[in-house]
């Protein structure tokens, strides 16, 4: 069981960050659902709940989601349901149950770069950006490729446009961790294929996305799915072997492309 010696509820992000970095074993607290599963000995827990980061805002160019926004708020947000074929909301709605999703936060989930994440895969396909207190604003893709560091994720930005998307996932049973997940999006003729739970963290299938964007043809769906499954690496764990994941990746990529094609 993890332990917390001191509990801080800073009123500004600056104060939160300074407290976080003042000691090696200080840690930010999001919903605290994942932390409780571990055995971290936290000196000072930095609770973000007084920073006003619980929001989903309809900005001129972006949808901005504050770090403390819960998965249930994401799932039920009319703004997110009505954009991008509801892909962001769809990606979180099979995670455990409503009582769990009323607790866990987007900031913790994205910052932690969990390999099994459903949400990261969907955000990656949408070309989302993250805003970090120290490192600033960057694409989610760049953030995922950076080494792990100490910072505070403040918000996630998704550009508002006509992007259409689909989220597909495979689980042994509903509410279990995903065995593999895929999100595909299209903006005009630009396609993005993201694959997560490989079980490594989500990544863009760059080659497949490029081929699909340059020369789309319905007859070649199988081919695009094959490229995606070939260019990414897959691993094995108790939920599935690398081979199984690779085979299922093809199926989900194909399904996702087909669903995007049906979007109006």
């Amino acid at each position, binding site marked *: 069981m993890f332990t917390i010696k001191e509990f801080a509820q800073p009123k500004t992000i600056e104060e939160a960050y300074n407290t976080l970095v003042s000691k090696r074993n200080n840690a930010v607290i999001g919903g605290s659902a994942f932390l*409780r599963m571990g055995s971290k000995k936290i000196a000072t827990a930095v*609770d973000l709940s007084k920073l006003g980061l619980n929001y989903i805002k309809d900005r001129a160019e972006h949808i901005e989601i504050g770090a403390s926004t819960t998965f249930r708020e994401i799932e039920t947000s009319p703004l997110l349901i009505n954009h991008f074929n509801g892909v962001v909301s769809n990606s979180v709605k099979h995670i455990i149950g409503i009582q769990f999703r009323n607790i866990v936060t987007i900031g913790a989930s994205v910052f932690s770069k969990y390999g099994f994440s459903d949400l990261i895969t969907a955000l990656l396909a949408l070309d989302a950006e993250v805003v970090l207190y120290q490192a600033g604003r960057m694409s989610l893709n760049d953030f995922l490729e950076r080494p792990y560091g100490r910072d505070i994720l403040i918000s996630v930005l998704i550009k508002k446009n006509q992007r259409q998307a689909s989220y597909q996932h495979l689980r042994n049973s*509903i509410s279990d961790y995903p065995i593999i997940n895929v999100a595909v999006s299209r903006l005009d003729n630009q396609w993005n294929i993201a694959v997560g739970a490989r079980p490594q963290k989500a990544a863009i299938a760059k080659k497949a996305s490029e081929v699909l964007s340059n020369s789309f043809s319905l007859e070649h769906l199988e081919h695009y799915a094959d490229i995606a499954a070939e260019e990414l690496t897959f691993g094995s764990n108790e939920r599935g072997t690398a081979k199984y994941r690779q085979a299922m990746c093809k199926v989900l990529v194909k399904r996702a492309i087909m669903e995007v094609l049906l979007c109006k």
Partner: protein
Amino acid sequence: MQIEIILNGKKVAMNVKNDEYLADTLRAHGVSSVRKGCDTTCCGLCTIWIEEKPVLSCAALSIRANGKSITTMEGLYNEAEEFAQVLVAEGSEQCGFCSPGFIMTVLAMKRELNNPTEEDIVHYLTGNLCRCTGYMGQLRAIKKYLGVMQHEPCR
């Protein structure tokens, strides 16, 4: 640290540790409807409401509940009993261990969803595990209780 919560409508002061979760705090305070099933955030048995929203009390830090309104089954006695009668009539109460969390979720759903379909009901309840019933009796009971018999029959 001392926190003050509104527990089932009454102001209560409690001493909590920084890493204590509400499931433990409430039980220590004699709230026996709050039970821990899995203690890994998966089973829904410890469901309570914070500010009217259903949450897992095994994953909600007590210290953060300071100043908030907490509802447990003890605070919804009449409503819970009314639904429990329907559960019994459908033969779906079984061992009863998971019932408090399950009832808390059903009563939250009643407030949140307007005329839910069977699919909505199943989705809302995926976080509540039950090892006895196979869920069909529970689903019948919920549909009866919410008056949603007009939707497709249970299979």
